[in-house]
């Protein structure tokens, strides 16, 4: 243990002397802080945008009050009135934005058919989406391994190449102790950076101090340890610094770039998705067919589902709103299987990635962090389900007006249901991720130690 600490302290002096490495650590710290800044401002921007939506609804209501000064037909209101289903971010999302930029954070809803409203997208700059988010998770998952590589590619090989190793190993110390001390110093340094950045990020984003603090730290720590495990394996192979650098970068490239992109192709092939396009087209046909079908046919289909309105007056007029909204809803129901298939298809793809992410700890770490922050696909699907329920509640609110021919007064606007949905973390996913990461870590260290045992360190 004494020797370990001597070597550990020596590593600190070597590190301080290597200006390039100090600079690199500083650079990582700077990019990390930028990542936190970007993530928090992005989430703050989304929050402000969401906060501005009630004002839009309010202006819409004011306009309708002018347009319909007296009691109005609720059908007119439902047609012209729009409101929003909003998806509020969890504070953690600032650290791992996930898909919050690809998927819209609100849906504008009218009383019309849901299915051609639910998939509307927000204004986005595709170039920005292509470049991706520079959040803390990106810094940790993508850039941190590169720092580990830069710090450790010559872990033992530099001593060998500089000819110091023979003199070092002529001392009564184990080569394993030398490697352990060097590795431990770098682990301490990098973990220090990770914890510092995570702490700053958590404070900046104002996250609630719940169990997720521990999960986040555990995930990022294990992910770091994994990369040091890779370093151990490469060090144990005892090649030159240049070969080590190439090998480590190759592993990085494979795990962080190649495996994910190939997996993406594989998943798309293995889980073909029923296209949303088909669903939209079919829904339009259904809804517009409603105009041409006999009204009694439409209404009977509707009453079969909503018997409580069966006793309402038979429609004789050329146009009446309750008939209009009935076939709007029937249009939704006609494509319900497609809508469900689309959602389950997306979920199935996500689940397959979850199962296969053992192939790359980078994917595992990213999806786990996203799960922790509630910024991944399942959360968006949950939001869409929530928006669907909101649409149901809007219909439930307007149907009595429509079917009982109750007039819609200005006071009724305030009674209309409002929607709010806040991301929920997928703790189970994060926990699975943690376990799988632990498995990866055990595997690389096992391999590294085995290699070291098989091939004792040669001084030259």
């Amino acid at each position, binding site marked *: 243990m004494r020797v370990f600490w001597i070597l550990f302290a020596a590593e600190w002096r070597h590190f301080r002397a290597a200006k390039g490495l100090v600079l690199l650590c500083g650079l990582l710290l700077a990019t990390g802080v930028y990542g936190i800044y970007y993530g928090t401002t992005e989430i703050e921007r989304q929050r402000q945008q969401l906060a501005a939506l009630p004002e839009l609804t309010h202006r819409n209501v004011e306009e309708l009050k002018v347009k319909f000064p007296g009691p109005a037909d609720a059908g007119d209101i439902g047609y012209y009135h729009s409101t929003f289903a909003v998806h509020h971010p969890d504070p953690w999302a600032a650290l791992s934005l996930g898909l919050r930029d690809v998927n819209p954070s609100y849906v504008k809803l009218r009383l019309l058919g849901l299915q051609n409203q639910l*998939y509307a997208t927000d*204004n986005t700059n595709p170039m920005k989406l292509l470049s991706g988010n520079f959040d803390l998770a990106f810094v940790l998952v993508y850039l941190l391994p590169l720092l580990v590589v830069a710090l450790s590619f010559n872990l033992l090989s530099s001593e060998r190449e500089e000819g110091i190793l023979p003199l070092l190993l002529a001392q009564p110390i184990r080569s394993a102790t030398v490697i352990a001390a060097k590795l431990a110093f770098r682990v301490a340094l990098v973990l220090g950076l990770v914890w510092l950045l995570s702490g700053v990020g958590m404070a900046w984003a104002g996250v609630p101090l719940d169990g997720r603090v521990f999960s986040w730290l555990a995930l990022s720590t294990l992910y770091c340890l994994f990369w040091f495990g890779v370093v151990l394996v490469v060090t144990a192979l005892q090649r030159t610094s240049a070969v080590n650098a190439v090998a480590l970068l190759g592993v990085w490239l494979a795990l962080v*770039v190649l495996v994910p992109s190939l997996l993406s192709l594989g998943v798309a092939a293995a889980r073909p998705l029923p296209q949303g396009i088909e669903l939209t087209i079919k829904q339009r*046909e259904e809804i517009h067919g409603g105009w041409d079908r006999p009204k009694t046919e439409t209404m009977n289909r509707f009453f079969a589902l909503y018997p409580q309105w069966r006793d309402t007056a038979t429609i004789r007029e050329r146009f009446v709103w309750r008939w209009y909204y009935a076939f709007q809803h029937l249009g939704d129901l006609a494509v319900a299987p497609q809508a469900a298939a689309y959602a389950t298809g997306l979920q199935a793809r996500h689940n397959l990635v979850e199962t296969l992410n053992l192939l790359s700890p980078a994917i595992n770490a990213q999806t786990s962090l996203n799960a922790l922050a509630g910024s991944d696909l399942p959360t968006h699907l949950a939001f869409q389900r929530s928006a669907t329920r909101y649409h149901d509640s809007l219909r439930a609110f307007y149907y009595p007006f429509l079917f009982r021919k109750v007039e819609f007064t200005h006071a009724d606007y305030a009674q209309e249901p409002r929607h709010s949905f806040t991301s929920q973390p997928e703790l189970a996913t994060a926990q699975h991720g943690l376990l799988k990461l632990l498995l990866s870590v055990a595997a690389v260290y096992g391999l590294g130690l085995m290699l070291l045992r098989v091939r004792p360190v040669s001084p030259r």
Partner: protein
Amino acid sequence: MIQTIAQKEFVSTLRDRRFAVLSGLVLLLLLAATLVGRASYRTLQQERQLAQQTVNDQFRNQPARHPHRVAHYGSFAFRPKSGLSLLDSGVDSFTGSVAYLEAHQQNSINFSQAQQAGSLIRFGEMTVAFVLQLLVPLLIIFLCFGAFTEERETGTLKLLLSQGVTLRQVAWGKIVGYSRAVALVVAPALVLAAALLFTGEEFTGGPDLVARLVLFVVGYAVYFFVFVVGAVVVSAWQASSRAALITLLGFWILGCIILPKATANLGATLYPTITKAQMDAEVHEQAQHGIDGHDPHDQRAEALKAALLKKYGVDSEEKLPVSLAGVQMAAGEEYSAKVYQQHFAALNATYEQQNRLSNWAGLLNPYQAIRPLSMGLAGSDFAHYVHFQQAAEAYRYGLVQRLNGLQASMGHGDKERRLGADTWRELPVFTYQAPSLGWVLPRLLLPVAALLLWAVGLCWLGLRLISKTSVA
């Protein structure tokens, strides 16, 4: 002299087992990416063509309907993939593929592939462009980092120079030799891609595609050349092979990973945009109350009615030979479309501001020069996307106005009547003509200039540096 050295580098590179393995891997990835790109192109294109055909048929086969109902029935515009997008899918995966076109409103373009791929898409897509832009430079770095340092470390550089060769000649020889080796790796994949492009019946060839492909190849040749020269220069400048490798890898990480993301994010932070909800509300408001608040919708409608009555010399709406509702609808559509266009232009101007930072960064970073050039030539960049959006909106506007015209011509009391089914067969369907190369090129001047500047600048400055490098 240069040829001799080039030949030596070329031969020794081919004999290097590490290079053989790495380049084999890159070539394999390139070929795989080409085939995957073709397959995905085919699937998407067929899907969209079929869907477009379906909605076109549906539109033409409508029963007798009132024109305004047809305007609400609307149509869809599917974005066709460009031929070269199988090589570089650019922003295609992040843009929607279909817009619903209807009266009164401009809908978003929905269903992007990114929404369907989950968070995996964040790690990048395996396309030919991805391999060419990121992995081939890495291969070049591994190939060239020891160009000078190794010769210095083994002492062969002194031997070479003692034979009367100049450092500059050595450098050029190496550059030529390494370039040949890189060409050997990349060429087969590009030949395969060209063969697929020009033999597959799903691609509409023609001179435009040939010219794009040629420029595409030339662009990447310059890009790789920049990396070869850069790597050789760094190798001459650094003291040891290790230092040269680390420096080059550092540049690669900075240029290919950090800068593109950082500039895109910074651009988005500096030039914020409004949400579609906000924009739609503003469009609606200005359409209602007039662009500057002086010309509200109701007044416009009243004035239009008065003008019509005066024009036809009648005193009531019933006596008009045209449908007032139809004329007013047309006027309203015209006005709101004008308002929308203003907002849409402002939004896109903001996006272009956001992207400008990244485009100018091309002067600092060759990766950010080749990327816009490549996707511009492939027809998968932001400008092409906007072009499609505008084409879809132009079609929507034209269609809706034509339907409004039909409604107007029905005369008063049109609401009670319908137009025959054959009316819809005479209306044009949506066909998208992607812009030609002549439209694209002026937009790509900056990346072209940046890339050329890099090539010329590196050759000039770098080789000056090399002739001053130490021999021992």
